[in-house]
């Protein structure tokens, strides 16, 4: 729903969800700041009443002409799920035009530990989201970040993957410029590498997908 052909109304809607502590708000902030740097207008909305206490966190980043701070159901252009169960929870934000990028590393909620409903099967989550999204890329960003030296950089790996797959309102240079402002110098190199690795992961996924599509025809 980025640009309405009838009205010329132009908005790019980026939805990020996760669990308190995974850096969901940082992802939203980076997306917003980079878009702003690229000269676009930005509105964001955070719903994080209890994020610090292990709760579910969702943020909306809307770039362009729109004024609403919230994204309507099915209207996300980019959907970043930092945790698979949270991606499932907010699935209604995903429509046919949505590019979804989801980290498969699970954070098991207390309700499951205490004998509530079981943690859903991640493959089933992938199928459900894949059925409604234009593109759905599931991978373990936490493992990628761990290889780089710190699992906490998984959120920036995810951003890199999103950048590699979806239409973004900013350039890589603009993103790095923002990164420099947001992170202290000692974390900068790690986050740069995380972004690049995420982007590479997405491109290899694109290649595989293209080959698979080619093979099918």
């Amino acid at each position: 729903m980025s640009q309405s052909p009838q009205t010329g109304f132009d908005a790019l809607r980026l939805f990020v969800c996760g669990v308190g502590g995974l850096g969901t708000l940082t992802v939203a902030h980076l997306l917003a700041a980079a878009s702003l740097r690229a000269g676009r207008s930005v509105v964001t909305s955070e719903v994080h009443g209890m994020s610090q206490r292990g709760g579910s966190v969702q943020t909306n980043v809307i770039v362009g002409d729109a004024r609403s701070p919230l994204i309507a159901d099915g209207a996300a252009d980019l959907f970043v799920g930092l945790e698979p169960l949270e991606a499932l929870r907010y699935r209604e934000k995903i429509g046919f035009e949505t590019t979804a990028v989801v980290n498969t590393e699970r954070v098991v909620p207390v309700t499951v530990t205490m004998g509530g409903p079981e943690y859903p099967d991640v493959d089933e989550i992938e199928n459900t989201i894949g059925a409604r999204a234009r593109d759905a890329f599931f991978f373990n960003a936490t493992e990628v970040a761990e290889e780089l030296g710190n699992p906490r950089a998984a959120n920036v790996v995810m951003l890199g993957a999103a950048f590699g797959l979806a239409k973004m309102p900013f350039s890589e240079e603009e993103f790095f410029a923002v990164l420099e402002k947001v992170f202290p110098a000692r974390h900068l190199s790690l986050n740069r590498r995380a972004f690049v690795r995420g982007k590479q992961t997405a491109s290899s996924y694109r290649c595989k997908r293209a080959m698979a599509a080619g093979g099918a025809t």
Partner: protein
Amino acid sequence: MAIRRPHSGHPLLALSPGDRPLLLGNEAIVRGAMEADVAVVTAYPGTPSSEIADTFSALADEAGVYFEYSTNEKVALEVGAGAAYSGARTLVSMKHVGLNVALEPLMSLAYTGVPAGLVVISADDPGCHSSQNEQDNRLIARLANLPCLEPADADEARRLTKLAFEMSERFELPVLLRTTTRVSHTRGVVEIEARGEAGPARGFEKDFRRYVTMPPISLQRHGVLLEAMDEVAKAVDEIDELVVDTECGSIAVVSTGVCRAYVYDALAELGVTDRVRHMELAVTHPLPRRRLLQMMKAVDRVLVVEELEPVVEEELQRLAGVERLDVEIRGKGFGEFIRLGEYTPDGVLRTVARFSGEEVEAPGFPEFPGANGWEGGPVPGRPPALCAGCPHRASFYALKVAAGDDAIFAGDIGCYTLGGLDPFQMQDTLLCMGASTACAGGLSQTNEGRKVVATIGDSTFFHSGIAGLVNAVRNGHDYTLAILDNSTTAMTGHQPHPASADATRGRPVSIEAVVRSLGVEKVEVVDPMDLPSITEVARDCLEHPGVSVMICREPCPLYQLRIDGAPKERVVYRVDQNLCKTCGFKTQGLHCGADICSSTELWRSKRKIAELGLRVEDPVRERVPPCGASCPVNICVHGYVANVAAGDYAAALQVIRQRNPLPSVCSRVCHRPCEDACYRSDFEGPVEINRLKRFVCDWATENTDQIRPPEVTERRGEKVAVIGSGPGGLSCAHDLAMRGYEVTLFEQMPQAGGLLRYGIPPYRLPDEVLDRDLEWIAELGVEFRCGVTVGTDIGLDELAQQGFEAFFLATGAWSPRVPEVLQTGCEGVRDALSFLRDVNEGRRRRAEEGRPVVVVGGGNTGIDTARSNLRLGNRNVTVVERMPESECEAIPEEVEAARAEGVDFVFDAQVEEVVTGDGGLEGVRVTVGEQTLAFLPADVVFVATGQKLDVPTAVSPQLVACGDWIGTDEDGQTRLPGVFAAGDAVEGPGNVIEVIAAAKRAAHSIDKYLSENERDVEPLNFHDAQAYRDQARYQPVEVPFAPAVEPRRPEEPARTFSPPEATLTEEEARTEAERCMACGACANCNVCIDHFACVAIYRDGDGRVRINENLCNGCGVCAELCPNNAFERVALEVTR
């Protein structure tokens, strides 16, 4: 959020005109206030307003603004009034419900007005994201009759804050700036303007007829307010930025707040901006009447889009009515617009589309199957939880242990509200800020005999909890108040409060000094992380009559981290998988089921932290306690004893039945190896385990509706014949039925029970007790065929033809084994077991009164025979036993009881001769000890020296091996394939519980024999005796003295066959059960998850409990409560 800040200067102050930063709505309000050169800011934090106060707190000194976190909203507004009276531009910030607290000063402040700008921020919370209600404070603006401005986004929040100050000063009235969560917590691009120069405050100028709201003055001031508001009403029509109007089209949408953005986007997306007029209102009281009338005259229909109350809608209808306008006004009730909760962009889009006309359609979204595309079952929620290491969790845990489930918990508002969720469920009421202290008073006055506990945070206590405590002291209420003092206002982001040490001005107020000064006699300050201490304090306080206060003091770890910075050494805890006894070990060792131990676990943990005072460093406990290990069927004794202590008798029975198919029988006749093994037997005597079992079984007879019967999970088709219905046959039938087999039990006697029915006299084991166990076995689907002698009436081969695929022989040993010296053929020498059978069948009734009787053999059969004789009226009964008393096989209590009833014993004695005369038997001559000879006169001599296999009933002579017994291998398999045997017929007379154990083994073997794949066979789960012997012994540091509950002995020796009354009352049973030292680690522990639920503790995919080291902050409370000492402290290297 790691936003780097310039070394000097707050970023909001560093901005220059023309800058376009992305700011939070709340930050934009601060910037607006700075541009208006605000001088004084007061606030009480509360979501979604908190960032306003926090931002001011961070920049106040630099900006030269006086800022304070006030004690509550009323105080904040009153301090603000004083400042504004003195000519200082003042901003007062709070959440919507805070305005209720500040309502009293607000109502009168409207009358006095203010000489300098006073802006009151009310951050409303439609949808109750983090509030106890969703009241619409635009109605408060109407009630107080004060101007109310409402921004739609961040930049407007800045502009309207400035405008609010201008209007406030122009009309000398406080102005309400109302935001909602979606405006306060939304970031947008803000256009920065220069900071203003208001100049210094003029100082207070006395004006008695204005600032003193005495009756005649207040009425006059009301008149002043009404006049001023008339002026405001005119002005709002003239101030351009209060109304944004597209002024086109024949229908109109009027919107307020964040809905303005939703409508803007909706009209653009629908492509109807040129024909649907959009009028955005930034002021909602008073409304711009002239402009609204103009609009209503120009259109046919109006749709009002406003969340919560129909404030604008009703005002438009009123206006249209007064002006007799022909215009249709819609709002609440149209499309998806209701008074409940927030509006959404989707709902607004669809409703505006519907309003716009038939040809306009909102973009549809296809329906997905299942729950919106998901067909994988319920999606687990992720509710907020107390943080890892939160001291409140420890406080709740201790209060739960001390107060129990029956106590009523009056809750309050703060992080600890989360104590209302699982697993604690310890917020039974939650009304508003500070309500707990007073509400607990009302609860305590109306719930006689129940404990009442109020929990309140430190900040909330000062906010409005004190008054309730004053009331409780004065009116003699009886409750315990736990003030959860974490040194900060944690819920809203760690703001200081009156008692916190981090204020830059003034002095901290001592909570305990305040509480003591109110006259509370019982005041304790305690560290909640020290579980044993806090539990003791909690008990002490709960016992105290009247109001008692425990101040649970430990700083919020997140707040501490913020002050101290990251620690050099990080301590976390890990789970020692060898010690942890969670269900992950279910198939090893003992276990009592997955879902029945909740109360037990808590009780066990409570024992550890509270009563035994055992600490983390105490020696490792045994994995299998001695009671369970010494029981031949390994009943989880400590499990059911703990269930009794916890008052869950149904669970206790369930634990017993999991291992023992004949619980009622054993509760009367077991020889109790468990009690011999009990650690307490070395001190004041063992826990009276068997009497507890009897209590549970008797309880079950009275409470059949509460019994949770075992379930046969999988039924299979194979038929098994069990021959003999004594303890062996019954147990094997039970276990086979539980394993899913179709079992038929054959019994030659008219009733089932074998030795239990015909060999044990009714005063020890009444028929109705045996029948209860038989009934439970029959409920599993076991078919009983009594009066059928297999071998005579029907052969095994015939049964095989009928489809039976396996046989279990438990025919017992009924033939007397008579020593040679007694084989005289004399009529007076009789078989004790036949006698007992007669007694049980009621064929002996006081027939042999007065005659001297000698019983040879002092085992249980001998004692039963002697005591039965007494009951038949014989006064002269002597038992002759070969062994000394200490080595005698009978249950010692039975010997004692027999002696008390008048039975004489001759131990260490051999019968040398049976003396007969003309009249038949005269007596026996015995040697006692080495040489003493004695003559015991007797009319009857009963032989109770053992039994042997009754060969003719042993079905097939070819099974008999090694003398007189049926020969089997270790698994109970005989020489014939498919034929198994156990019990007295195999091993000779044994104890009931040992026979049960052998039968259970045989059932397992039969299952293996009939199953294609041995792996499918449910294991026996018998404890490995060697592993038990090898394990580390539990060494209690100190055993608290706890004598056994004194058994009530019958005063008169029994003269009848009726069984003695129950020996334990419920209260006594629980007291007795509490003597258990819980020396074994529970095989099925889940306490850290079920009762503590620290978010750092989780169950992994393999079923094991683990700790997430990223979340663990090393508080160590889990280590204190774990009954198994499975949490170990680990120091991690910190990598930077």
